[in-house]
């Protein structure tokens, strides 16, 4: 059976002839229009099928994405009644970016039932232990505190690094600390208002989470304040 020697990868059927030459001489010439026709027909069929499935699935995909975003924002902003989407453009926040440009970043500004602002929801991503950690966090610019954090995606080690999303104690650390955040080991905590206990065995992932928040606020903080001032 496992005549599957090491050379197997070379023996298997290749998409093209191994010499990279055009297919071996043909017994009879196939007219070019037939080739084009075949490809065209296949292409048309493919296009048709894809567009059809796209039409069917797209609403659900969009809906799911919107739902995930809603869940995330409401989680980090403590279930706001509604929120505005703001775009970062040329060093300032704006609700309506000019047509046709891609915004550098988006933040969400949440409001309570009574119209009082809860805070901003901001996303960010940086490399963690394995790959990028992507998260969203809520930030109250008036009190300079983080009010919530949720990891959107990460590939951190299960059982270790993935505690940044699964360990509720760690997630709860982000309800209320002042910025800039300071990561500490539990054993050496002093109780300062900006301290966040890091997870033992996942110091790097924890530090990345803290780092993302600090870096994003360093960058966006002034804009947020400027926007609030303008708005009030």
């Amino acid at each position, binding site marked *: 059976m*496992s005549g*599957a*020697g*090491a*050379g*197997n*990868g*070379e023996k*298997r059927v*290749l*998409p*093209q*002839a*191994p*010499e*990279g030459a055009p297919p071996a001489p043909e017994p009879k010439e196939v007219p070019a229009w037939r080739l084009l026709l075949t490809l065209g027909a296949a292409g048309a069929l*493919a296009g048709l099928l*894809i*567009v059809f499935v*796209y039409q069917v699935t797209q609403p659900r995909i969009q809906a799911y994405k919107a739902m995930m975003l809603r869940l995330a924002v409401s989680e980090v902003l403590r279930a706001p009644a509604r929120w505005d989407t703001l775009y970062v453009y040329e060093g300032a926040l704006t609700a309506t970016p000019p047509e046709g440009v891609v915004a550098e970043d988006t933040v969400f500004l949440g409001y309570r039932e009574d119209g009082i602002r809860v805070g901003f929801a901001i996303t960010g991503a*940086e*490399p*963690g*232990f*394995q*790959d990028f950690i992507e998260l969203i966090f809520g930030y109250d610019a008036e009190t300079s505190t983080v009010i919530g954090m949720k990891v959107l995606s990460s590939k951190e080690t299960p059982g270790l690094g993935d505690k940044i999303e699964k360990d509720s104690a760690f997630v709860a650390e982000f309800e209320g600390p002042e910025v800039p955040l300071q990561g500490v080991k539990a054993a050496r905590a002093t109780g300062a208002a900006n301290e966040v206990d890091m997870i033992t065995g996942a110091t*790097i992932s924890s*530090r*990345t989470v803290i780092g993302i928040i600090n870096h994003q606020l360093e960058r966006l903080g002034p804009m947020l304040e400027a926007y609030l001032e303008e708005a009030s």
Partner: protein
Amino acid sequence: MGDLFWIFISAMVVNNFTLFYFLGLCPFMGVSGRVYTALRMGAANIFVLTVASICAWFLNAFVLPYAPYLKLISFILVIASAVQITEMTIKKLSPALFRALGIYLPLITTNCAILFMAWTQANRGYNFFQGLAFAWGAGAGLTLALVLMASIRENLLFSKVPEIAKGNAIVFIIAGILSLAFMGFAGLLST
């Protein structure tokens, strides 16, 4: 600049395509028997990755915004044709280079490592230069894994590997050990 460097290093060692994403395993198992072949295969990979990166950047910038559902089809067809065209150009311009790389090109043109690179480059929204850094990092990483495996396998010819481990089993286990060793680079991006 630093950004490009980290993209390169990340794709090469921290998230090595072969050892962490299991990409391009078929050629990896097939041509890692000899260092010389492995080196040429690596070079061919870097070449195709470069072409693919340029194609993916082009498609991502000018085509996909209008027809996102064509992503996969357009990637695979455009990359394959572009490689074919460059291949023919090389054959004309530098027959020596063609002889060195030629037989490997069809083998890798429609290979998962290439597609994954293009796909990820598009997903991460890399610009032209970031895309190239990513492609070259991936290519360097593939080459590194190939050459290390090939030199180890050449050495293994002298070893009395137990009968049940001969063939692919030992190659997988060595790949596992390499992957384990390369875990030392994990987190290299985080500080």
